[in-house]
């Protein structure tokens, strides 16, 4: 069912535009043109973030921090196996999906740990990516309390995910 939604949606928009005499081809040219200037302002930010993320996850610092975090997780009633994915989740979307697949392989897809990890990844976003890309075309340099709050909110959601997975 969900595979029909996207093409149908875009099809309806194009048809509707045609009926309303909105120039469809011109709009696509305009949108494509805009996308180039958009990526030019976004690219420096994703480049910097990805360099840091790659360093962080491949240097082993990520695994080291995960080890330190495990007892904290057990204290909160969460499976300590989740520590690595919890650290990577706000940094990298692809990275957390790769870790998620690893958890599926190691613990089984329908295990409690795997379900917790799925819910955590499904119910959160890459906070640092959003923080850098969304402000990329503005003059804003100081995000003030934006990132701390986003992280706290995501981790509250993560704790809730583990509790929820126990009952549902």
């Amino acid at each position, binding site marked *: 069912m*969900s595979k029909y939604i*996207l093409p149908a949606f875009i099809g309806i928009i194009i048809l509707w*535009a045609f009926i309303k005499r*909105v*120039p469809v081809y011109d709009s*696509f040219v*305009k*949108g*494509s043109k*805009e*996308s*180039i200037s958009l*990526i030019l302002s*976004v*690219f420096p930010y*994703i*480049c910097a*973030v*990805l*360099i*840091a*993320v*790659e*360093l*962080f996850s*491949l240097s082993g610092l990520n695994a*080291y921090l995960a080890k330190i975090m495990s007892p904290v997780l057990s204290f909160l009633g969460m499976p300590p196996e989740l520590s690595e994915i919890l650290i990577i989740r706000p940094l990298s979307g692809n990275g957390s*999906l790769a870790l998620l697949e690893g958890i*599926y392989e190691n613990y089984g*897809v329908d295990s409690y740990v795997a*379900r917790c990890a799925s819910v955590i990844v*499904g*119910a*959160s*976003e890459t*906070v640092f990516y*959003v*923080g850098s*890309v*969304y*402000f990329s*075309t*503005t003059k*804003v*340099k*100081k*995000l003030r*309390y*934006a*990132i701390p*709050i*986003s992280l706290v*909110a*995501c981790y*509250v*959601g993560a704790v*809730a*995910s583990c509790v*929820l997975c126990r009952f*549902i």
Partner: protein
Amino acid sequence: MNIVFTIMTLASLVMLIVVSPESAFSIMISGASSALKLAFTLVAIYAIWLSVLSLMEGIGLNRMLNNLFRPITKRLFKGESDLALEYITLNFSANLLGMGGAATPLGIKAMECMQDGSERATDNMILFMVINSTSIQLLPATIIGLRSSAGSNSPSDIILPSLIATVISTVTGVALAKLLSCLSKKEKKKEDEKTIPKQPLYLDGKIKVGVAKK
């Protein structure tokens, strides 16, 4: 971001110098080149969504959606222009439907409309970022897909807990953002009150100096 970035790269580099110094530079290059690959994918996704967006603008669908969600967005984002509210609504709709590729350009446009020209993010911008980074997706399609390809018995089991967890994190985020915005406003007021009585004195001094010189 500057502090986080510095700590992350510096700590990782120190670790790498101890563990395997020869791989450090190639890791940095692989990070940058994966950004380049991502940029190529993104420019394609943005091209399509920005085109659809400009069609939607032409039809007037944006305004219709905006009118529908205005009661909510107007209360959440006080004092924002209609255009900003329109982009916010569209960004939220895209996020709810799980169209991340469409949500990003819309979010960037919303931020552009909300900025006040200063280097500090406004309270509304922060609230917007917090809502976006706590995920408001109704159906985590990617995860369900991953689960079914990994051979799960019931891949869609996680829909309900994900939805509840998302609501919890978003509500927490909004509450914290609103709380901190209230606190920072109060502090600003206090600071203003402190500085106001000083100003006339300062002016007084200047005038006196001026008079003495004459």
